[in-house]
Every structure is written in structure tokens, then in C-alpha cells.
């Protein structure tokens, strides 16, 4: 074990995540224009370069795209894309941490399954 803790999330990642969340929740629709780098920088009180980094990352992930001279837009299939990359992140990063804690606290598989099923039941009931 290296002894190092997981690093804190960088600001640009937080900006990207906030926008991704809005896409997932449907607050930002596909093909909708998102606020410019400058506007976002002013609202979030961060340097425009930081926002640009977030937008570049989302472009690479094909969550947003740029129309020349017109700004940034939510890509077609962005919600699906966000869902996919969130899922990957959950499976690769969150879940191993979770399993480590389970092991550390000696939580058995059955115990977990039972809790999970209860959770599913409760949450499904709520949605009905």
C-alpha cells in the first residue's frame, strides 16, 4: 500500500461534473446552448482557463461540442454519454473503495445484499 489518500477533485472536474449532473437531470437538453466560458467563469468565480479545461474535457468525452463562433452546445446522446462515463467512474473508483471499507469493517455479502434489497424496495415504493 502506498499510504497515499485519494486526491481531492480539481476545480475543473467539479465544473464538468456540475454540468454533467444538469444534463443527467434533464435541465440541459441535447442541442441546447450552454453558457460561454466567460460567463461561466464569472458566475463560478474561477479563471476562464479553468472553465476552458472543463469544456475541453467534456468535448473529448463527446458530451458537448462547439459550433464555430456560436459557442458550446450539448451533444446528441450527451445524457447517455454522461451516464456511461459516470458508470465507468463508479465501477473503477467508487466501488473498489466501497469494497475496501466492507472488508475493513467485516461486512458480509449477505448483509449487504439484504440492505440493498431493502433499499430497492423502499425506493421503488416511494416512486409508485
Amino acid at each position, binding site marked *: 500500500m502506498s*499510504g*497515499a*489518500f485519494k*486526491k*481531492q477533485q*480539481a476545480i475543473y472536474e467539479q465544473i464538468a461534473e456540475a454540468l454533467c449532473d444538469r444534463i443527467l437531470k434533464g435541465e440541459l437538453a441535447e442541442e441546447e446552448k450552454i453558457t460561454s466560458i466567460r460567463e461561466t467563469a*464569472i458566475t463560478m468565480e474561477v*479563471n476562464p482557463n479553468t472553465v476552458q479545461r472543463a469544456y475541453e474535457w467534456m468535448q473529448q468525452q463527446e458530451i458537448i461540442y462547439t459550433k464555430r463562433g456560436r459557442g458550446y452546445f450539448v451533444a446528441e446522446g450527451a445524457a447517455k454519454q454522461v451516464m456511461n462515463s459516470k458508470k465507468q467512474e463508479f465501477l473503477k473508483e467508487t466501488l473498489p473503495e466501497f469494497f475496501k471499507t466492507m472488508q475493513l469493517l467485516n461486512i458480509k455479502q449477505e448483509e449487504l445484499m439484504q440492505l440493498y434489497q431493502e433499499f430497492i424496495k423502499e425506493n421503488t415504493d416511494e416512486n409508485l
Partner: protein
Amino acid sequence: MIHIDNLSFYYKKKKPILSNLSTELAQGKIYGLFGVNGSGKTTLLHTLSGMNFPKEGTIKLNGFQPKDRKLGFFQQIFFVPDAVELPKMKIATYINIYSVFYPNFSESKLNEYLKILKIDASESLNNMSFGQQKKFHLAFAMACNTKILLLDEPTNGLDIPSKDQFRKLMLQQMTNDKIVIISTHQARDLDQIIDHVLLVHDKKILVDESIYKLSQKVKLTTYENKDALPKDSLLNYKSGIRGIEALTLNTTNDFSDLPIEFFIQTCIEKPEIIKKHLTN
């Protein structure tokens, strides 16, 4: 552009404040000027604005030498000192008298800024608190729309909401043809808005690097104990809540935010290490 070439300044020759300091500052950037008390930050700002004259070396600022004190030079620079001493008069009178010196002054911008900073434009300056006066001075400075804006400890004396508004206004007024230099001890007030770090240490500029590059070069990691610290890449460490917080060289490709206060502390405490690893 600002070119500083081998600048030296002293009041007593044997006690130089700045010695052979050189750097270049580019348009479109907000520079954070850091350094301990007495390191010469304010002296540097005074020299840039023509209030002090270089004892040696030259400064060129958009083609002007500050020490020549040409009209065209004063029209494109604004300096806001740490402690403001504004004349005893109404805000409107102040604006009438002083705005004429600045060809790009915008009254509508000033009113907008004053509104955001919650300053009543019908007030008299002498009836306002230190913080209110400071905010007025900052708003006026930004509304003058000069090519060069020098701010000495702008967040000093500002309450928490005002700091917030100040950051917003700073980003709002920023354009590609401006150079802003902000000297500060409150690194955390401004670390998210500045582009570039200038750190004055031992009469010179020790760190002259963009925030982006610095955050690629160094990172903060928490280790469980001292034995886990990486020997090769370690710059500095201190104990934190969850273990040992270490500032290390970033040897991976991942990108994290620059832990600015710890970084500056390290520069001041261990300039040799910083020189060795981070300056060329």
C-alpha cells in the same frame, strides 16, 4: 507588455529592496504578486506606476518608461494602494474631478460596479468606512478601464460578500488587452482567478510561472505517515488532520489544483528546493 530589465531599487545602497529583477508580463493576464512582508511587492508596484524611480535597470510599459511620467502613461495605468486615503468630498465630485484623466472611463460601468458592491453613489467619501472607501476605489479603478491595473492587497478590509463580488468584477472587467497585477497575502481569496504567479523573494522574482503549469508540476497528497513520503519528489510537508500533507512534484499526468498557500509557504521556507526543481 511590461518589460522589467535588471531592475534594482534601494533607499540605502547597502540595503537593496529589489536587485537585478527581470521579467516580462503579457496582456490578458491576471498576475498574483506574492511575497512575505517587506519583500518589496509594494516597492515593485510603486516603481511600475512611476512613484519610485529605478536605481538601476529599466521598465518599459506599453512603450513608456514610468519614470518619464508622460501623460499617455498615466492615462493607461491605475494603482490602488493598500490603505486608501481619498479626499473628503462627495462621490459625485470625486468622479467629476478624477475621471477626466482616464480616456476610457465608463460612468455606466462605475454605476454598475457601485450597485453590485452596494455603495450609495450619493454618499460623501469621508462618511464611509475603510472597507466602503476601498470598494469605491476598486470600482473606480476598474471603471477607468486602463490597460494596466495594479492592486495592492485589494481584499484587505473587504467583508466576505464583497470579496465574492470583487472576484466576479475582476473577471468581468478583464479583457485581452489588459494586464492586472494583484499583490496579496490572502492567496486563497484570489487563487481561482489569477493566471500567473509572481513570487518576490530575496530581492528577485523566485517564481514566475502560470498557475496552469504550476498545477501540472506540483501536487498535494496526504500520506499516512512520514515513512510513506516519496523521497525523490518531496518538496515540503506538514502534519494535517488525516496524516502528513506533502507537497510533491507531480510525476503523473493527472491534474489537480495548485495548493497555493502551501506552495507559497514552501517557496519562502525552502527557496533552494524550489529553485532546484521549478525554475529554469
